[in-house]
């Protein structure tokens, strides 16, 4: 089933690469945000999530720190990786099963694994992770505003060699770099 497929994924898969499409639906089901790009993950703590449009953003976890580079804004925010809550898809896909069970109650349907935050500290109500061909293929995140963010993964390659350079980041010349304290979000 889906839960077993997820456990196997965490056991067997070390690197994941592919492309993604992400869109957010508002509570009326209208698409209010759409973006796409490519990603590479080297479990358990390195990934590179690259948004191509409409705004280009690079999110890089190098194993110690999480870099967020907003290209159009000439700004990089960097924070300690360990302190970042595990709700983002990249963290979900790269962490390990024990982390997941610690953060979320896991339940299973025919089509997905349902993740319900245990301590409510997460910024969302529920997430659903659909497994296919031995890897996560779609992730949906519901928040209490009735919005759903869906991330679809395609052209996924498992355990292929990954250029480790993708998980290193050097802020380009002339870009402002800010240390963000780890747990601040909007509030």
């Amino acid at each position: 089933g889906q839960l077993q497929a997820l456990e196997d994924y965490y056991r067997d898969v070390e690197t994941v690469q592919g492309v993604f499409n992400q869109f957010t639906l508002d509570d009326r089901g209208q698409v209010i945000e759409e973006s796409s790009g490519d990603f590479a993950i080297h479990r358990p703590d390195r990934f590179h999530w690259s948004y191509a449009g409409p705004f280009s953003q690079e999110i890089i976890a190098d194993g110690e720190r999480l870099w967020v580079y907003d290209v159009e804004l000439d700004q990089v925010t960097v924070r300690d990786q360990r302190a970042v809550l595990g709700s983002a898809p990249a963290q979900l896909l790269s962490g390990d099963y024990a982390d997941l069970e610690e953060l979320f109650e896991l339940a299973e349907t025919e089509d997905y694994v349902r993740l319900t935050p245990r301590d409510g500290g997460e910024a969302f109500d529920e997430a659903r992770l659909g497994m296919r061909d031995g890897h996560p293929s779609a992730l949906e995140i519901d928040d209490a505003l009735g919005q759903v963010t869906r991330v679809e993964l395609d052209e996924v390659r498992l355990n292929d060699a990954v250029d480790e350079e993708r998980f290193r980041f050097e802020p380009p010349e002339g870009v402002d770099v800010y240390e963000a304290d780890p747990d601040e979000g909007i509030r």
Partner: protein
Amino acid sequence: CALLVPEDEREAQYEAFLEERAELRDWSVAGRAALRAEGEAVSLSLRWEQRGEVYTINLSGPFGAGAVRIEGQPGRVTLRDGAGQSATAQSPEELLAAQTGHQLPVTALRDWIVGRPADGLEVDELSLDRVGRPDRLEQAGWRVDFQGWTDVDGVDLPSRVDLTRGSTQMRVALSGWSRSDD
């Protein structure tokens, strides 16, 4: 470079520029905002819908996490967050200060974001670019720099606006403008 265009001609272009925006009442835009205040740095996705005096602003962190929605009309603004809490205040400034601790000129931003000085505020400084669009303006202690423009069905609207006041800075990149004149 501003010397190439005679002063009065740029003024005339600026008047035309303001007229072009006079009936701009209904619009929506997507954005990315980078806010830096007192050493804190936040990077957000932003979606702003303005229908006359009524507006909805969606803010969210990466992957839609921590989504916050601000719905406002003159005299009443409500903020709802991703955990189901909501709060109401008279003005967006009061609400954001109470909920996030950040001082943000949301009401003025409504005009700045479409490229014009904020209504009802003194204009302490205004410089125009070669074609009569604002290049930089200063109001209520905020310095507003228009870093780029994009043509939206014949009307130039900003593609990036930087706001600075003291140690607070907010950069907003804008894309996907849509507007309807009434």
